[in-house]
């Protein structure tokens, strides 16, 4: 534990949308990790406050759109007296490589982190050629 570095604060980044919004409210960009294994691409998105029923993942024209809605009803009867961060919904979009098996994408939320597993299509997976 002593060897681990001390965490720095990174300011939340507001999403710059291509389309303009009609509903008032600010949206933030979730911090994302992407890694690739032999058979899948995995995306990990940090969306604190977003439960598993509040995530919306859509694919449209090679673009993967992820949206997470926070539940701000809990803030209704309390009064802020000191704040260091703001809250809001999350949204981010990624262009998909065409070697993804779109029907097999799975999503999972745990501790405010959304994990998206994008399995590669059969033809894109590495094959070992046996030399005779």
């Amino acid at each position, binding site marked *: 534990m002593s060897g681990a570095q001390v965490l720095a604060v990174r300011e939340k980044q507001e999403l710059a949308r291509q389309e303009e919004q009609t509903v008032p409210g600010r949206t933030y960009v979730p911090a994302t990790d992407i890694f690739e294994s032999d058979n899948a691409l995995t995306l990990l998105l940090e969306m604190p*406050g977003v439960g598993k029923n509040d995530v919306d993942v859509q694919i449209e024209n090679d673009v993967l759109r992820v949206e997470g809605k926070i539940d701000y009803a809990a803030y209704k009867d309390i009064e802020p007296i000191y704040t260091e961060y703001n809250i809001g919904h999350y949204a981010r979009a990624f262009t998909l490589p065409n070697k993804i098996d779109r029907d097999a994408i799975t999503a999972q939320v745990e501790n405010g982190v959304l994990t998206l597993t994008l399995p590669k299509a059969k033809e894109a997976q590495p094959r070992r050629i046996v030399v005779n």
Partner: protein
Amino acid sequence: MALFPDPFGTLLGLQNALDAFRRSDWLQSSPSASGSYPPLNVFRKGDDFALVTELPGVHGTDLDIQVKGRTVRLSGIKSVKYPEKVSVHRRERLEGRFDRSITLPIEIDQDKVTAEFHDGILAIALPRAERDKPRSIRIG
């Protein structure tokens, strides 16, 4: 139902309220405030305070909360792990340890402090100690 139900019940109304208290020196002026991660929001409900922070990907078992007098200390470790034999294309999630303590302007009843941790959000309820509560004085 109206498309925009209530101007103050919207998310934007709440966001503006949160913004109004940003960059105040309410806690910075305290000599015992230390550390900067995680960012904290402090709320008040009646006499009691609540401290809310975002800790996505942190396990409850890796968190340590201590309360004494007016001070709350929050420490722990946030780790980001990848499986073996993968190539990482993008790395934005931060990892490391954190230790933050802040001093509030009220005395906390440390036996009644409760904490909840759901979906990466930690909420610590800090009830004000009975002896610290203001009393109304009646003019005789």
